[in-house]
């Protein structure tokens, strides 16, 4: 497929002009998605698609256009549109393409050479096992919704007018489902189970199905507790929701636009000394790992918060030029249909020493939060953080029963300061990108329930 890299280079050659910088990205994706319901395949989708995106920077003014039409005419129309659009943009002296850097050939272990040839029947079998594991967990699991297996073989070809021309391939396989449990009183609850890896063989169908079953059963019949301020213990999936908002607050671009609750606190203690936050685009077998980022800068590992002290931010080329720093390789792209934008790669909290059960055993009185619902309830700008929660009540280190219909409220600031235990069980949650978090204990959180 090196001809697609040549094509990207050729687009750059066609579109460039004196004073005009050009970058071309070509993506080629082969994807499979399967859904089963009650042991039967319900949906099977297979596809192969390509796209081209052209970014033009003309005197600091950026224009962008994309297409899936690879005819000579389609390609010319696309780069011409990008050139035209650049004319209406505002000139910004910090806009520009990065210089071509050498890309290390270190094996990031993101390519499963077996995946492209795994037969569909094997994928279907795996998915049926996922569903069965949820049902087998407990007879009160009555349904599995969205029971899905998917995989993707993605190729990225990137070239620019500063001489960069590189490509990489990445494979991903994932599966998820929502287990639905019904109690004796007819009340129903649901919970997700999921797994994702660069390698097909790493998916554990039994664990994925069991997670959905176990979580749904655990919160069945939950009732609100009284409104109070207490300790909470957060499951991975819950911690990941909060971390994804923190990732936004640690983007240099958002700082430069004054959109972060952490603004101007570099070098300060912003969290408890148990908090170390990393972004690492070179993590072995990382779901978001890649040799270079969305604009051709080598990826890197960045220590953002070290034992509670805010040390670094994530940078792309644009924000780095503004702060006179080097890009940390955090320009992200959602395929060929978007401009690069600053975002996390594999973003995670460094694990501690206790297991989840040890953390729960250390809580005198509080809530183990199994699942949350939130949309826009965690605001990286104001730091407000409020979610609906289901979970298990803890009394003297023991789980006493399910809790539902409550809210948990804190601020991101208090959240970071009040983390009093970090588990040893780091896990990356695929539903929210590659956000990794261990079980966390947080004190002084408001639980909203009955009076």
């Amino acid at each position, binding site marked *: 497929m090196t001809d697609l890299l040549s094509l990207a280079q050729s687009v750059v050659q066609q579109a460039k002009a004196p004073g005009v910088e050009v970058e071309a990205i070509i993506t080629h994706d082969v994807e499979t998605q399967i859904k089963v319901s009650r042991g039967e395949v319900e949906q099977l989708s*297979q596809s192969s698609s390509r796209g081209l995106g052209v970014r033009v920077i003309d005197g600091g003014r950026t224009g962008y256009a994309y297409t*899936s039409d690879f005819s000579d005419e389609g390609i010319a129309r696309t780069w011409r549109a990008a050139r035209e659009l650049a004319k209406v943009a505002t000139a910004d002296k910090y806009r520009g393409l990065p210089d071509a850097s050498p890309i290390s050939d270190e094996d990031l272990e993101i390519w499963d050479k077996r995946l492209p040839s795994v037969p569909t029947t094997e994928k279907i079998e795996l998915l049926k096992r996922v569903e069965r594991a949820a049902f087998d967990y407990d007879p009160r699991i009555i349904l599995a919704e969205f029971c899905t297996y998917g995989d993707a073989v993605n190729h990225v070809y990137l070239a620019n007018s500063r001489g960069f021309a590189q490509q990489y391939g990445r494979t991903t396989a994932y599966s998820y489902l929502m287990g639905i449990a019904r109690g004796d009183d007819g009340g129903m609850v649901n919970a997700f189970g999921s797994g994702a890896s660069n390698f097909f063989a790493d998916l554990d169908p039994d664990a994925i199905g069991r997670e959905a079953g176990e979580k749904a059963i655990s919160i069945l019949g939950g009732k609100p507790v009284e409104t109070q301020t207490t300790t909470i213990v957060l499951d991975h999936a819950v911690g990941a929701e909060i971390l994804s908002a923190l990732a936004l607050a640690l983007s240099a671009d958002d700082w430069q636009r004054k959109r972060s609750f952490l603004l101007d606190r570099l070098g300060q203690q912003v969290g408890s000394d148990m908090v170390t936050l990393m972004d690492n685009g070179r993590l072995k077998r990382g779901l978001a790992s890649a040799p270079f980022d969305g604009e051709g800068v080598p990826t890197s590992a960045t220590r953002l918060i070290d034992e509670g002290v805010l040390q670094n931010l994530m940078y792309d080329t644009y924000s780095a030029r503004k702060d006179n720093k080097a890009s940390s390789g955090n320009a992200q792209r959602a395929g060929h249909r978007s401009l690069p934008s600053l975002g996390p790669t594999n973003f995670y909290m460094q694990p501690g020493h206790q297991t989840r059960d040890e953390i729960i055993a250390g809580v005198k009185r509080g809530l183990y939060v199994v699942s949350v619902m*939130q949309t826009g309830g965690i605001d990286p700008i104001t730091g407000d953080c409020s979610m609906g929660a289901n979970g298990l009540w803890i009394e003297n280190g023991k789980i006493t029963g399910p809790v539902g219909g409550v*809210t948990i*409220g804190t601020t991101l600031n208090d959240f970071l300061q009040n983390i009093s235990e970090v588990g040893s069980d780091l896990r990356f949650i695929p539903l929210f990108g590659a956000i990794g978090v261990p079980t966390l204990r947080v004190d002084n959180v408001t639980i*909203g329930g009955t009076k």
Partner: protein
Amino acid sequence: MLEKSLAQKVLAEALRTGADLAEIYVEDVESLQLGIDDSRLETAMRGEDRGAGVRVFFGNLVTYAFTDSLDENSLMEAARAAAAAGRGTQQQAKTIDLTERKSQLEYPIRKPFDTLSIEDKVQLLSRMDEAARAYSPQIVQVTANYQQLRRQMWLFNSDGVQVEDDRFYTEVRAGVVAKRNGTLQRVREGFGGRVGLELLDDNDALAKVKNMCERAVQMLDARPCPAGEMTVVMCNGWGGVLFHEACGHQMEADFITKGSSAYAGKIGERVANPIITAIDDGTIPGRRGSLKFDDDGTPAQRTVLIEEGILKEYMWDLVEARRVGRDGSTGNGRRESYRHMPMPRMTNTFIDQGSHTPEEIIESVKRGVYIRDMAGGQADIAKGDFVFNATVAYLIEDGKLTAPLRGATIFGNGPQVLQEIDMVGNDLALDPGMGMCGKIQMARVSVGQPTIRIPRVTVGGTDDASASN
């Protein structure tokens, strides 16, 4: 876009392994996005996206393959890939008699996208940015975005259906951040619809931006929202997102046929206070959720979901209608793009007009929360629990709006709240037209309602002291 003879050939290929229905969905999308951030025009982007998907039905098994090129080879290859799952016998090759159906619905565009230059569109965004910054020095950040989108679809199926729907959407969004000392408040809003550039004549973008700034600055004085159970009054228009999330999704047929919805098997039963009538209407002129035909090729329609408290109908797509042997769907089959299979989705969904004035509703509350604006919400399907985060909310004390509140979240159970809503206003409105609904796939929707009162619901906040007094 696709010759009838080629469509017939591709459908015949897709049927070869014994399928009972085959379909080709062709799409051509063109978009322009412009965005100002930090007073600079930073986003200037054009996109085109064209492709086709072949869908094949074998009883309850549905297979799909899509391609981004529309030449015969690619389409035939997609048809073969989708047909590959069939184990049935080869069907007798037959000519599929495609007959183009015309819609009775019209969504005329008064001002096509090209009646304003790109520079004019940029100018509008600049004026919005300037208006916001001129409002107050406390407005520290402004974003303004413009998007135009043309999404043309053609659909052919082996039952002889041939339809097309040429959809134009225009939308404008803005966001402002107000700052005083260490406190930040953000307000985001937009307006749009299945319309052309007449949108910009029909809406005063600058007045809207000033109004947003006013609310953001006012919210700087907001105090933490009290936590606990209390009475909540939700504003008209966008407030309808509560019904959409907490009840509407549960009336989508995929959750009904599987039995995961609280409304499964409840047709004819009382599911709401008799003052509630709720409707999904995909035929309202100019709205984001409006269609001529849905993405299964079914004509859009108006469906009464709840009539005076009684559950009347669900929202069906073709797959779910076929599953239960229903005669056709309700025109709710929608897909994000040719890369996706349709699923049951809402169009424009709202609670119908009631009898109280909004003032009467607020005056009836001794102590509670008035929710003026929400960031959106989420609901869990099985249980019907929902959570909404209010971005602009006020305390109600003795029938009057008093202090602005920050960090307000309401949390409850959709089906239960629907039974409990005890006042419905006479000020029905649909939202301004920026609703985007995510259910694995994204879809443009509208929501709406009059002002409503929920007598008791859990409000989450960070102030647990005031709840206990």
